């Protein structure tokens, strides 16, 4: 028998709120990547085995099983590899508030990288988005070495 959540007595459901804090170490590769963002510099890590230029940078190539240390420059402009327009609001980790919908989300292959980067798109009209479009980063005015130094990507006219 299933209780209708709307009519369930308090005894049938115990409300639980989880508030916990973890402190992640970003690792030396991400440390350098984030520091670069503060200077509007994007860098990828290139694998000496397969030549893949990983962005975000990975310290280790899972395919070649090699440590990576060869940093290569990446432009802040690239190609849209996939996109979607989100209509269900999520909590924006940067503000703690629901992000206004609709908004565009893209997989962007920056010039100089072989993997794609997830990021917001300035454009949220499905009729104006297409795979293969050229997009470029819109930087925040005051850079602080964080992922959201890039606000979103806009379509290059």
């Amino acid at each position, binding site marked *: 028998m299933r209780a209708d959540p709307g009519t369930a007595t308090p005894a049938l459901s115990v409300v639980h709120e989880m508030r916990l804090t973890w*402190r992640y170490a970003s690792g030396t590769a991400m440390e350098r990547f984030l520091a670069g963002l503060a200077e509007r510099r994007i860098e990828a890590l290139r694998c000496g085995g397969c030549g893949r230029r990983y962005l975000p940078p990975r310290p280790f190539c*899972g395919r070649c099983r090699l440590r990576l240390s060869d940093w290569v420059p990446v432009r802040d402009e690239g190609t849209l590899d996939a996109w979607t327009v989100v209509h269900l609001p999520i909590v924006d980790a940067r503000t703690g508030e629901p992000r206004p919908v609709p908004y565009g989300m893209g997989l962007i292959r920056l010039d100089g990288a072989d993997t794609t980067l997830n990021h917001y798109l300035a454009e949220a009209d499905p009729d104006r988005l297409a795979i293969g479009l050229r997009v470029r980063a819109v930087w925040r005015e005051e850079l602080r070495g964080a992922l959201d130094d890039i606000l979103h990507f806009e379509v290059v006219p």
Partner: protein
Amino acid sequence: MSVAVAGVGESGPALDDPRSIPEIVLEAVEEALQEARLGFDSVDAVVTASVDLLDGLTASNIAVTEVVGAVLKPETRIAADGLVAAIHGSCLVRAGAYETVLVVAHGKASLGPYWELTSWALDPIFLQPLGLDFLACAGLQARALAEDDAAAEQRWARIAAERRRAAAAHGVAPACTAEDVLASPAVASPLRRESCAPLADGATAIVLRAAGPAEPGVHLGGVGFDLSPHALGERELTEWDGLRRAWARALAVHGTRPTLDVAEPSCVFAYEEDLFRHALELDPGTEVSPGGGLFAGFVPVAAGLSRLAAVVRALRGPGGLRAGVAHGTWGPAGQGQAVAILEAA
């Protein structure tokens, strides 16, 4: 067919390691592979142990997929103590499924409030609302043991001091005396701060390989594990009967009862050594935690696998030791128990 431990590698235990989990894990993996004289390509399958709640990440193995060489390979993830991962890995080898299996466990206690996090691993209806955590559960268990044993607290203080002294050179906490232990603040009466192993960060990796029974090296013999009821009220708290059952299974797999030269229990609290000795009916001649055991640094999840690595090192050492036992435990007050016999061939 036998299962040999071809290589062991460890990172830590360390206090507040500034590195990321993949960086810590890679160090242990590279060391284990180097010892086994194998490259990543020789590894047929990977078994990892990690706990989402501790890592603040669901499917916490995704953080280490690359550095354990599991990309494009069969990987199994165990959300329990690392010794269970080793047992699972040994089953894969024994079944003939894979020849070489890499087993990796990691824990980073500095990432979050460890004891507070353990509260979330308890039953949410009855126990969490009381604010209970694994430390309080251990306090209840220790009290049940101390109630009719006036000498218990003094004995545990001596055990803690002895382990701390043995671990001081390579551990994360300095040596201290039994008096220091008894004078340290109570954390969950009768447990005192210094009678608990210090939390630490680290990773352990081992390479298991199919081997002939007489092939030189350390072999993984009988293994067993067991899970008791979750609720403390459904258990006899004054013993680790789950470990007794796990040990009986390990002996049944092993075929004979070996003379144990060394035992490496996963005792986070000094009182647990009493439970361990009792469950295994340990011979007084068996040396327990010669390097101080977890009092060198308790790395959650990796603890049991680090005990296996410690036994391997002891059996490889110049002492001519023949057999040892490694132990792992997880859950509140020793709910989960795992044990593995290791022998030098």
